[in-house]
């Protein structure tokens, strides 16, 4: 097996949010099999810059699978078809010589395209601002055992907290629903004692912000769970459904 690859890229190019955009066919040559998908794009970009052409714009930051900044729909699946990884952790050895690869941005009305493959995911930030925090000052980290929390609860909260907010759930969903993201963020805080006092306010605030951002509605197809690089469970969505309903009924009874 050769240690470098030649690939045919079909890359989405769009000058700005208003532009209609189109696919551009680019050849990626001499790509080392050990390169990550983003490094492959770097190599292509270097060539484009040398040729005095506009490089492909794409989001990235940590390149170690923890920040949630990288995106891309690769051959129809957010972060590519391998499960449990982000695009920066996808390596070119997963592809074959002369493969054609379709590279598209994370598409959704709520994620407008900024340029090429970079999309505006600040809708997620606004959802967090609507309740994805606790109001008390926590100071520095306290002793691990000073606040006893059941093992199962801690595990659940931790699994939900693993969400890196990349938006793959929205990108994979037929309805561009943000339910997996919102439910992970809500359950992370709502299942811990620190988050309990504000749990109703949090769920109402975050769900209402989600709705106002123009995300679609969950139809329980679970594409989000399959696409999520952190394998966040759709159990979170079931919990969000009941906690929202309880909070909304509570609010109605209180009014």
């Amino acid at each position, binding site marked *: 097996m050769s240690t470098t690859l030649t690939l045919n890229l*079909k890359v*989405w190019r769009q000058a700005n949010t208003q532009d209609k955009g189109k*696919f551009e066919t680019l050849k990626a040559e001499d790509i080392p099999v050990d390169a990550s998908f983003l490094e492959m794009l770097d190599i292509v970009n270097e060539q484009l810059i040398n040729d005095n052409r506009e490089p492909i714009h794409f989001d990235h930051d940590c390149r170690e699978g923890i920040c949630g900044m990288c995106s891309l*729909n690769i*051959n*129809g*699946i957010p972060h590519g*078809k391998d499960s449990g990884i982000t695009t920066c952790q996808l390596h070119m050895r997963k592809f074959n010589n002369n493969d054609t690869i*379709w590279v*598209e941005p994370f*598409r*959704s*009305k*709520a994620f407008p395209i900024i340029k090429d493959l970079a999309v505006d995911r600040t809708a997620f930030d606004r959802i967090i601002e609507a309740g994805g925090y606790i109001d008390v000052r926590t100071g520095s980290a306290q002793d691990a055992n000073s606040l006893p929390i059941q093992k199962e609860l801690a595990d659940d909260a931790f699994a939900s907290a693993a969400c890196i907010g990349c938006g793959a759930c929205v990108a*994979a*969903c*037929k*309805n*561009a*629903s943000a*339910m997996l993201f919102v439910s992970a963020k809500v359950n992370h805080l709502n299942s811990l004692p620190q988050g309990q006092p504000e749990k109703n306010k949090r769920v109402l605030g975050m*769900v*209402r912000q*989600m*709705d106002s951002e*123009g*995300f*679609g*509605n*969950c*139809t*329980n*197809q*679970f*594409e989000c*769970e*399959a*696409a999520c690089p952190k394998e966040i*469970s*759709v*159990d979170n*969505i*079931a*919990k*969000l*459904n*009941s*906690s*929202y*309903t309880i909070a*909304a009924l509570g*609010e*109605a009874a209180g*009014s």
Partner: protein
Amino acid sequence: MAVTSINYFIFMQALLGSIASFWNSSIGKKFIVAITGLMLVVFLLGHLSGNLLIFAGRDAFNEYAYFLHHMLHGVGVWIARIGLLGALVLHVVATIQLTIQNKASRTDYKVQKSQRSTLSSTLMIWSGLTILSFIVYHILHFTVRAGNDYNSVEYAIMLHGHKAHDAYTMVMHGFSWMPAVIAYVIAMISLCSHLSHGVASIFQTLGLRNKKSAAAIDLGAKLYTLIIFVGFLSVPLSIYFGFVK
């Protein structure tokens, strides 16, 4: 007096406001879809058990039809009809609104692969609309009895000393005509496609599903769907092919 009526007015306004905000929220509307779906799922089982009485013979079936129309002095059937119609209207209006929102939220990919979705889950709106048009036809066929003579004196009988409608003969006649049987078969295929995603979905939307219960819920939903499919089709098919005379 004036104060209480103002309080009452403020209370009603707040209540209506809460109902509107619940209906307008994504999760609230889905909750209503799930609850009304559950009502219809339960109704189907009741409907099916009544239908199967056709195999118990003419008198058992007609006696059952008589009971349905006369329970609570004839009010019972109207309570059920209004309740079911309400559930159906809410279910249909909510799902159409949700589907329109969902289409508006998605900008299309050139290449999009699904990893989990079942075919049925992608066809919900179409299977649903097929069932809706079937319900209209079915009600005209056997309830309103439009375009046929099922309301005529020929179908008026005496049963255990009281006047009754010969529902048995009506059904036998209805299903001896091939186009009707075909319509019912198509409707049941749509219905079971709809149920195969919908029933398990109810549990997820009501927050009653998790990784531990998922297998049991999925199995139960499949079993339910199978019972509905075989049960409902057994009547027109057995009649058409002459197993029931």
